[in-house]
């Protein structure tokens, strides 16, 4: 508007000004952001807006719908609250165990408690099925055992299994960071152990406890795979209900409304979580560790009991899965008379065979091929999009600091919702196999950026300057300074993206076409089919997925910058 009122001479200088303003400092930055922003706009924000429009359609806001939403919300809260409380009952003593005591195998046990968090939901669900399912080891070993856990208890246990590590990490770290002098001061002022905890430690841990509780609750609130695979559609949480309203009892407006309700709650939790995290003040790091060998009998008893309990709770499912995948417990199809119990590799061999000869049946090996293909695409896409964004965020301008949370936003929305958004925006008929890796990229991108950004930011500009004053060409600078640091981070980010794609369940379930299942989808199909053979095959596939994921986790750990904490 203003341009119109200017004469020719002014427009000339204005054009120059605009050019200078945009070309010199801005153009490279804009080109860095172009791809990631476009990607997020078209595959996250557009679907999100479509969901919003659909949700506030008049057809969605009916009385029956709102009653359903309320009851679903109620159950979601109920199970999440219960799961969180139970997770804390196990997590708090474990946090004390790891922060206050030294014992043999401590780091191993700690690592063990962290394993489930990285495992795909199908693997964890399969592990619990391997013990407690009607085909499970437990039912076979103790057929008349009175306390057969219900599906609900299984779901709660799986949630504890997943999230205890969060409590151990957040609360345990806060406990180790706690200045031991405060405790010493309190004791010397006459406070006994109980009062030290009541008056000093607990008040100081409050923000950490709250943060851990919020995070655990958030994960339990949005839990999908575990609930669907262990409970079936009987336990309708918001996530499960969205899935049902998309695939089983199609009602897209209701699904949209449900996901908006879910989004609002996750947003509230995230805001609360960020607030509490900011309250956690970093106290002066203690000069010596508070962890000691257990001395008194009480301490020894506590350490021994919890070591045993934790190892049992975390090892049992993880070991049962491979064990069950190699054990025949019941008659296979077509097998008459005496059942041969014992060791078998049949489930693995069966993975390669399309026994049914059905057109729609895809061999597990084909599912694995699909998974690997999708995962590779996800790696390429997320690196291509994540690299420029991480590069820009390594030294962000003020404006770019606002983009940071925006890029992380897909983390906060559930996978099922991402799938729903794709379906609404691009139509189910459009669901080409391409949409699965796109959805996976959306989930993996925040991880990739968070891995690359610190590595890129860690390279001091002085190093590059020193290299170039010593005569290195820009390429040589990149080759000798940037590459060694960035290559590790890139590999780590790639592995991250690969693992995320390999295990992704929620979005894939909604988006995948029947002829292109991934490993998790194949596992889910096997689990939902009757018969020992299908169950065995699910176990075998889940075992393979577990091994793959574990290898990837180990690779990520290995590739982590050795002194990334120092920069």
């Amino acid at each position, binding site marked *: 508007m203003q341009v119109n009122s200017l004469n020719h001479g002014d427009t000339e200088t204005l054009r120059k000004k605009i050019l200078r303003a945009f070309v010199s400092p801005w153009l490279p930055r804009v080109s860095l952001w172009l791809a990631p922003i476009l990607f997020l706009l078209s595959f996250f924000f557009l679907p999100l807006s479509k969901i919003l429009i659909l949700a506030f359609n008049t057809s969605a806001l009916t009385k029956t719908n709102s009653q359903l939403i309320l009851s679903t919300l109620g159950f979601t809260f109920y199970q999440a609250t219960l799961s969180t409380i139970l997770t804390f009952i196990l997590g708090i003593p474990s946090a004390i165990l790891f922060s206050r005591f030294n014992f043999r195998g401590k780091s191993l046990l700690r690592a063990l408690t962290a394993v489930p968090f990285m495992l795909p939901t199908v693997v964890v669900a399969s592990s619990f099925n391997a013990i407690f399912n009607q085909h499970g080891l437990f039912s076979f070993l103790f057929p008349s055992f009175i306390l057969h856990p219900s599906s609900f208890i299984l779901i709660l246990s799986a949630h504890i299994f997943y999230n205890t590590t969060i409590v151990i990490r957040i609360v345990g770290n806060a406990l180790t960071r706690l200045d031991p002098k405060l405790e*010493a001061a309190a*004791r*010397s002022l006459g*406070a006994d152990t109980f009062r030290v905890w009541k008056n000093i430690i607990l008040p*100081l841990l409050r923000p950490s406890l709250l943060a851990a509780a919020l995070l655990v609750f958030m994960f339990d609130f949005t839990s999908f795979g575990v609930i669907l695979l262990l409970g079936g559609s009987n336990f309708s949480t918001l996530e499960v209900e969205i899935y049902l309203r998309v695939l089983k009892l199609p009602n897209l407006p209701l699904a949209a409304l449900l996901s908006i309700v879910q989004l609002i709650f996750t947003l509230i939790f995230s805001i609360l979580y960020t607030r509490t995290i900011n309250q956690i003040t970093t106290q002066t790091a203690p000069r010596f560790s508070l962890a000691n060998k257990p001395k008194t009998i009480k301490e020894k008893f506590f350490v021994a009991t919890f070591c045993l309990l934790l190892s049992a709770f975390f090892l049992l499912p993880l070991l049962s899965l491979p064990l069950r995948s190699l054990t025949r417990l019941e008659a296979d199809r077509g097998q008459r008379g005496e059942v041969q119990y014992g060791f078998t590799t049949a489930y693995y061999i069966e993975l390669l065979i399309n026994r049914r000869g059905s057109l729609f049946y895809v061999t597990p090996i084909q599912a694995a091929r699909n998974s690997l293909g999708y995962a590779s695409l996800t790696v390429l896409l997320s690196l291509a999009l994540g690299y420029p964004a991480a590069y820009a965020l390594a030294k962000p301008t003020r404006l770019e600091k606002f983009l940071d949370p925006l890029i992380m936003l897909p983390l906060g929305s559930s996978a099922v919702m991402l799938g729903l958004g794709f379906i609404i925006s691009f139509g189910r008929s459009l669901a080409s196999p391409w949409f699965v890796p796109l959805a996976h990229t959306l989930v993996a991108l925040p991880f990739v950026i968070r891995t690359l950004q610190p590595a890129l930011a860690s390279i001091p500009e002085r190093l590059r300057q020193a290299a170039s004053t010593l005569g290195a060409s820009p390429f040589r600078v990149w080759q000798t300074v940037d590459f060694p640091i960035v290559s590790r981070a890139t590999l780590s980010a790639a592995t991250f993206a690969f693992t995320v794609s390999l295990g992704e369940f929620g979005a894939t379930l909604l988006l995948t076409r029947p002829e292109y299942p991934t490993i998790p989808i194949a596992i889910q199909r096997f689990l939902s089919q009757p018969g020992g053979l299908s169950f065995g095959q699910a176990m075998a596939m889940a075992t393979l997925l577990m091994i793959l994921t574990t290898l990837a986790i180990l690779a990520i750990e290995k590739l982590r910058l050795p002194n990334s904490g120092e920069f």
Partner: protein
Amino acid sequence: MLEIRDIFKTYDNKLLLRGISFSVSKGETICLLGASGSGKSTLLRMIAGLEFPESGQILFNQIDLAQTPPHARDFGLVFQDYGLFPHLNIFDNVAFGLKMRNIPAEKINARVAEMMDLVNLQGFEKRKVTDLSGGEQQRVALARALAPQPRLLMFDEPLGALDKSLKEDLLNQIRIILHKTKIPAIYVTHDQDEAFTITDRILLLHGGEIIRDGAPENVWANPNSVHAARMLGIGNVIEGEVARLMDESGRMKVKTSVGIFEVSCKHTHKKNEKISLLVQQFPSPFRRGARGEVSDEIKLKVEDVLFKQDQFQVKTRGGLVIHLKDAPKIGQIIRVKVKVECLS
């Protein structure tokens, strides 16, 4: 009142304290002086009951404290970085020990007010810990430790984190308060200025043992050992070789890189034995310095000159460091009067 008997303690599989014994009597302030890592803080923590010795006893009024948990010992503790409770305000910090003793509220109020007066922080009660400066925080920590009238006060490098002028102020305040309250105190530091200011008695901790125990002026006048002289930074410690034994009483001639000196040693030495000598400039350039008679005058070649505060620190060939009012030229030969003592 407090008696430490033959304490041994290992830390990281190394013997940190090997046979520490000393006692603190009523109203006395003693100072443990030692380098960082010498185990002085560990010793305090053991007295407080927060750690345990491998062997040895800690007694108070003839009662062994081995079975007494820290909260029942009634010993106050003041730390280098204050250790104030960050979630409590100043009042609640100072009142903490009183509350633990279930003292009625009005008595707590009165006592806290009294303490705030004592450390000159009237009106600070409602403030947050983080609002205070380092010196103020340390005064709060002092008030907190004093409030429940402990039987013993322990200071673990209390002024280490403060700057110099603040240090002197607070040091004097602590001294006055200790005199007023007559509470026996153990003051741990690596700073000898602090040690000499605060205390009636200095204990030098080195290599896990107490190598010197005495009044500050005696310790300074007779460090008695190489380590003590080095720790206190008294004069120059140089190596020498016994050249000639003069008589039975221990007089001998010792050959060093800066000349031959005649000294008398407490211990007997053989000819050609290597011994250490303390060479102090005389008259001393410092407030606390060598006393007694001049024994020798030596010639030294100047190697390096540094300006330090109000005088010149001169390094000479042979490694002797002396202090002069006027700067000599490098390479110049200067004459210096010294007092030489046998340390070994």
